[in-house]
């Protein structure tokens, strides 16, 4: 396989695509927000439960490409238990990572499993796929909108 492609479709991504974590409807969610990429038809619903500034629970449903689904899955498992501020910081770092703008080892280390998405920066057309769930979460944490679109 081409090295960039190998970097893009890492085991972590293929695994989360096949068996997405926290892939369920949350009946008692505080927030339920839709994320949509009309260009490729990726469509997710992110469910959120926040207590005392901490993300108690996070789940999602929907469908899309491997990159978008794995990203939503990894995001849900990493953000759960983090404070809203920490989640927002991760969103920023993740965005820098997929844009190829993340500098320094320290930053990379703090990303944990998210580093699997570093290969996305070599595929500009796929940045939106990787960041769809994150944009949706960001909107859920910071505004009252019910829908977010990457177009």
């Amino acid at each position, binding site marked *: 396989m*081409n090295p960039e492609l190998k970097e893009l479709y890492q085991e972590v991504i293929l695994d989360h695509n096949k068996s997405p974590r926290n892939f369920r409807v949350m009946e008692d969610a505080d927030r339920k927000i839709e994320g949509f990429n009309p260009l*490729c*038809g990726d469509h997710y619903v992110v469910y959120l439960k926040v207590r005392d500034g901490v993300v108690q629970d996070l789940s999602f449903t929907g469908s*899309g490409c*491997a990159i978008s689904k794995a990203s939503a899955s990894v995001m849900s498992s990493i953000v759960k238990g983090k404070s809203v501020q920490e989640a927002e910081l991760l969103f920023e770092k993740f965005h820098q990572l997929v844009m190829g703008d993340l500098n320094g080892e320290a930053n990379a280390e703090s990303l944990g499993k998210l580093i699997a998405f570093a290969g996305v920066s070599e595929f500009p057309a*796929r940045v939106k796929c990787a960041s769809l769930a994150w944009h949706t979460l960001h909107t859920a944490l910071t505004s009252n909108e019910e829908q977010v679109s990457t177009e």
Partner: protein
Amino acid sequence: MISTQTQPTKLTFDVVKIRKDFPILSQQVHGKALVYLDNAATSQKPQVVIDSLVRYYTEFNSNVHRGVHLLSEQATKAYEESRVKVQRYINAKRSEEIIFTRGTTEGINLVAQSFGRANIHEGDEIIISGMEHHSNIVPWQMLCAEKKATLRVIPIDDNGEIILDEYVKLFNDKTRFAAYTHVSNALGTVNPIKHMIETAHAHNVPVLIDGAQAIPHLRIDVQELDYDFYVFSSHKMFGPTGIGVVYGKKSLLETMPPYQGGGDMIKSVTFEKTIYNDLPYKFEAGTPNIADTIAFGVAIDYLNSLDFEAIHDYEQELLEYATEKLSTVNGLTIIGTAREKAGVVSFTLDGIHPHDIGTILDTEGIAIRTGHHCAQLVMQRFCVPATARASFAFYNTKNEIDALVDGINKVKEIFS
């Protein structure tokens, strides 16, 4: 492979020779030979078309219609020659029936905004089909919203064919216009346009045909099938982008108000009154896309230099080969299985999103289109969010289709 090329019927078409006319095809992408299978989006350009653009800017760049100097005369002559080339290519009766636009989309908007706004009123109905590109839906929706008119949609069946019985039932005394595609960009379906136009004309309803996907593959004779409006783009027929055509019957075009106002579309202007120019200039406001129009004419010359029947047969052979080969891939479903199709195979792979297919094929040098192809309603009809689409031109080969199938098998391996 070799045996099929030595069959007597294929002797008139030499794909190896043809490919040399298109410099881009010998390019490498990601270190692999380019396999360009996104022709329904845009086709590649032969060297003669590229040379024409360079020549215009090098030798006679000048504005048309207004100058009295030599360069302007040369540019005007070449620009108007292109109009005649288009006229002859589609067998229009008169060159003033050829209106140059930026492309198919602008052409449809021209007809909707000019003919539509003058002739569609509250309560009227416009018929379109369920396999339209967004560009043949949205302009009519906009018109309907403005005029309080209604859009009626012809349903399509599971093969991706128009349901003709349902089409006939849509006509009533409120029907004022119909617009549908000749060939579907997402499904490849060739619609029974002759029969559909006859039905509309029997109800005195004029028809616009979106020919963007048809004109690279089919011989178009606007008089033979009695087209009212036929719109298409140069860039899908091996010419430059940014230039397209509205063919309209003179009798209809004459009744239509101008679409845009400005220079060249007028005879005289006073602050009290403007007298509009004659056809076709009434619809060509401002400085046109001169270089690309001239190069478009060169693309038509190029097409005329080829054996059209041989091209058509060869493309059908490619389509059959691709359909057969792709059908053998486990988990692959072809979307759009109409009896008559032109150069398009849209498909899905079980459990693998089209965008992942597209990215992986790209690293193999294979360019296909993935997504909804600006035909979201077609995707909804077939309950898929998107498809992967391979579309062919006469410069494609069976080897390239084999490369596509190998690439798809690699996609499946990665996701296994």
